[in-house]
């Protein structure tokens, strides 16, 4: 006898903040590997092999903000500044910082949920971490776009 598949629709089993963040934390980790790879390959295509020192290349890889390669003029020797400050890199930088901050600060939220017994303090810190995340991301994106 072929057993029928048992599945529960999203509406039935509920889809809320907890499961959303549980999935987000896992998928954002994968996404960040991809972002880093794009940052690294992109930088090498833009001439980083001969024009950017290794430390700055790593900074750029893990956060493609043009400050990270353009400021260090004594060590870097960038031929074409414009390609490092394109719309594409601004979007990439914004995405990276959003994913990284949400991923990391959700870890802090987990610590709060894991170890605090007092529910009033827990609720306060829960909102505090959420506000911290939103404000942190907003500031970072502002920095990425105003240069």
């Amino acid at each position, binding site marked *: 006898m072929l057993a029928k598949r048992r599945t*529960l629709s999203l509406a039935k*089993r509920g889809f809320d903040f907890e499961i959303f963040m549980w999935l987000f934390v896992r998928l954002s980790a994968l996404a960040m590997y991809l972002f880093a790879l794009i940052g690294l390959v992109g930088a090498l295509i833009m001439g980083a092999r001969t024009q950017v020192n290794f430390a700055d290349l790593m900074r750029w890889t893990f956060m493609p903000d043009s400050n990270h390669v353009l400021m260090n003029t004594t060590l870097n020797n960038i031929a074409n500044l414009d390609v490092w400050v394109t719309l594409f890199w601004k979007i990439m930088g914004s995405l990276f910082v959003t994913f990284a901050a949400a991923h990391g600060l959700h870890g802090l939220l987990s610590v709060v949920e894991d170890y605090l017994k007092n529910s009033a303090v827990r609720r306060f810190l829960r909102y505090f971490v959420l506000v911290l995340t939103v404000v942190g991301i907003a500031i970072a994106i502002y920095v990425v776009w105003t240069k």
Partner: protein
Amino acid sequence: MEVTLKIFRYNPETDKKPSYKSYKLDANEMDRVLDLLEKVKGYQDGTLSFRRSCAHGICGSDAMRINGMNRLACKTLIRDVGTRVTVEPILGLPVLKDLIVDMEPFFDNFRSVKPWFITADPEPEKERYQSPEARARFDDTTKCILCACCTTSCPSFWGSEKYVGPAAIVAAHRFIFDDRDQAAAERLQILNEATGVHRCHTIFNCTMACPREIQITKAIGEVKMAISTGILD
């Protein structure tokens, strides 16, 4: 051979704080820790308190910390733990006396996941049939004896007893993956709250502690999967 049992002692009526007392006994390497506790209580110190019932690893009464590991005293041989044995109550639950803890918070969590059969189907004449394959799906989690070894080995449970804990998730798993049961959605919703499966960080203490060798972390993973995908097969 001579064995030294160092036992956690606490009587809330007379003691300000817990202490440890050592007892020396003559033992055989095939004796169980439970046998030695009985010897201490019978011949050396009648005030020693601990729970036990079946003495055969099936009632789950005598979970305790033996040399730092959660085990059943009735299933732990001296041969396996050596001649210096420290016995303490399981962690994360209030100690009532000596090795006896208050199990109520544990059972509250257990009850919260509705660990009973729920269906709206009319009662059949004889029984509700199930294929051997469908039964095998949740066989592992039927083995739980509610000793609390797993839940009280979990750092998330030590952090907050509001976390339902591995034992409750095992109990939920047993019904969620039972194809005759119809309340999987309800249970998944309960386990998707902040006090549910998301407090599990795959530490694996529970799997190591389980005297029934249930693959607990795997079962919790399957519940997480069911919450994410809705697939109950």
